[in-house]
């Protein structure tokens, strides 16, 4: 039989038309999907079921926080595909159970419209997993001490009205934070706390974060820039978090553009993913948050030097969590507090005077509302 006439054959199977180029290789959609799936499943090697001949096995519970952005949606798609294969294979067992947590995007940013249809699409496309949706303000319910913490953290200027709903109180707190950087920083802290508290309540031993490699590199640089270098060991590295829940980042070998490509060859994701809101080009640098600046930096530099940018997150992943003599951790973000005191000698008109012996860490005291930055 004569070979098929292909203008640009896929470099892997040589049997189909290549439709995209990734890492200098032209691939068809099937082979490209396999390539990405392989990269991610290799990161999931730690969650394997023992062979069937062995005795009873209870699949572990893993929590996947889903932002409905490209990255976490692709992660869900791939893990679903893996579980589906395990389920249909009579010789293998299902290694883990996936719980998907969606924090309602409209409660995080008012510019996000209702996502009901996306959520429905989600449940229809992936019917075998357990889905939970929570509003952002349920952080008060899941982390009961949070109300008091916020009061103390925000200081006397912040007037809390306990007669108000959780929703209004969270909005008031977020409104009291003046700079874009601190806002993003604290949102991330609160979201992490909510996800972790949910995972613990739900007895999930591991949280699978859907951060792309691009995002991890940006988080590394932003963490360093915000004085949170000490917590990079769990914020971007795979490992134990301060709350006894394992953090893993299975997308760490795949960058954002590659995940976009993956999404583009999966039509079933199109009615699930909420597209990113692009940062307008004309915004002044000083009005960006540090997280946004770093994401933009890694994305633009990554277009030219993808390897160098990927190497940033790989480098951060090599840091080793240190045992500390002073294991007190920040009441808010969970990082070690021990470091706040080490800052005498920096500023005489001390911003740190009040935080001596504080329960908040260096990074959190930088984002405190009363410290105008």
């Amino acid at each position: 039989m004569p070979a098929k006439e292909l203008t640009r054959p896929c470099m892997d199977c040589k049997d189909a038309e290549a439709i995209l180029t990734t890492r200098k290789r032209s691939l068809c959609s099937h082979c490209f999907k396999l390539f990405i799936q392989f990269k991610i499943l290799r990161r999931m090697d730690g969650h394997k079921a023992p062979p069937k001949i062995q005795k009873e096995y209870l699949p572990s519970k893993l929590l996947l926080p889903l932002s409905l952005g490209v990255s976490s949606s692709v992660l869900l798609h791939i893990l679903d595909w893996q579980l589906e294969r395990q389920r249909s294979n009579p010789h293998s067992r299902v290694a883990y159970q996936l719980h998907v947590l969606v924090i309602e995007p409209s409660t995080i940013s008012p510019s996000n419209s209702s996502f009901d249809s996306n959520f429905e699409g989600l449940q229809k496309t992936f019917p075998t997993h357990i889905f939970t949706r929570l509003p952002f303000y349920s952080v008060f319910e899941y982390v009961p001490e949070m109300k008091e913490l916020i009061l103390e953290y925000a200081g006397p200027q912040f007037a809390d009205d306990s007669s108000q709903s959780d929703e209004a109180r969270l909005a008031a707190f977020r409104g009291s934070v003046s700079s874009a950087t601190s806002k993003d920083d604290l949102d991330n802290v609160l979201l992490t706390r909510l996800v972790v508290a949910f995972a613990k309540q739900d007895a999930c031993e591991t949280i699978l974060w859907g951060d792309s490699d691009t995002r991890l590199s940006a988080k590394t640089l932003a963490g360093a820039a915000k004085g949170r270098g000490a917590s990079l060991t769990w914020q971007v590295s795979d490992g134990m978090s301060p709350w006894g829940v394992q953090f893993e980042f299975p997308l760490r070998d795949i960058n954002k553009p590659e995940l976009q490509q993956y999404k583009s060859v999966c039509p079933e994701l199109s009615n699930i993913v909420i597209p990113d809101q692009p940062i307008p080009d004309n915004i002044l640098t000083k009005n960006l948050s540090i997280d946004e600046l770093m994401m933009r930096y890694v994305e633009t530099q990554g277009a030219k030097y993808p390897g160098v940018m990927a190497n940033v997150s790989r480098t951060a992943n090599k840091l080793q969590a240190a045992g500390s003599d002073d294991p007190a951790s920040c009441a808010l973000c969970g990082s070690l507090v021990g470091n706040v005191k080490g800052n005498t000698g920096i500023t005489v008109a001390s911003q740190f005077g009040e935080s001596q012996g504080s329960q908040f860490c260096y990074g959190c005291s930088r984002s405190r509302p009363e410290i105008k930055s």
Partner: protein
Amino acid sequence: MAPTLCFNCKEARALIIRPKNRHKLCRACFLEVFETEVHETITTFKLFYPGERVAIGASGGKDSTVLAAVLKILNERYRYGLDLCLLSIDEGIRGYRDDSLETVKRNAKQYDMPLMIVGYGELYGWTMDQVVEQIGKKGNCTYCGVFRRQALDRGAARLEIKHVVTGHNADDVAETVMMNLLRGDLPRLSRGTSIVTASGASEIKRSKPLKYAYEKEIVLYAHHRQLDYFSTECIYSPEAFRGSARTLIKDLEKIRPSSILDIVKSGEDMAVLVPGETNPNGKTCRSKAAAEDEAEAGGCGSQNGRSSGGEMAAMETQLAENEAAGSRETEIRLPQQPKPGSSKTQKPIKRQVMGHCERCGYISSQRVCKACTLLDGLNRNRPKTAIEVSASMDDEEISSTLARQMEHTQLTNS
């Protein structure tokens, strides 16, 4: 509108907005706060002991001029009992260094400190101008950095001084942290953040009393005290990673002024987390390799983000090749190896052992130190026809020439 009063004394009119925290201060309070912060840095980290002889690495630029001025004041005000002198390196860059050296000579008079100048030409047989002529404008900062490191040590040894202070400021340290994150160099990140670099093998201790001082505040301080400094930047181009890091830091400072300190803080915290760098207090770097390393980690502080991008492109190519090679490899696993989930288990880290360079006797982890290796490369390519002292010299002779040239180094009395 009534003039804003100083945040500190609440009496005088505020003239200066502090870049560090945007407090509005009067001139006198700003100068005092700046000096007190340096003093606090010095006492917190116990940088000096009474009676210590200290050489100030002076380039004539703003950082080292301010350092000299502040140290002189603090030494008198708080009775440190230090014996201060200036130590300058003449890289041999015409149109840049010759002019700045004039500034240093004036400073020596103004501050009444002895001055010593050590030249690359006399030490290595190569001025930077000649190096650049030979290897071009790219990558010459490596030569300059490696040479300067040794030159400062040799100059200090000449003066029988065991402590050199340099004008590295918070911006420089922050830049080093970001740069080493970008190029994935954790050991260097760890070393670059410590305020003191002492090493077991080297007699000479280095410290950075301006580690927590902002570049902008240094400029303001120099301006308001009307210090005599030289403000032209080095005419040769910076390294791309440092340039990229510098741009990033300028942007960060616009967003959140405390960022520079925050990066320094992150760097200090991360230093403790670098595998293989046991650095329990995070303040004093005991790494033996630090001595030969800091020159590169510190840079020359005169780059402003002009960059060719050559180094980043080179690293990109290298990483891409590594990845391509990785997919061609077959992984062979031994049966008893830990399961892949526990990928955190580390291979034993190869420790650097310090010895002395065979050629010049300078401390080095290698058989031949970096400076001699670089010199080898330079000398090999030096045109044989040129009339040069070192043109026909064998490699082995370099050490004796170096030693001889050191003999000629004079203590210049201004």
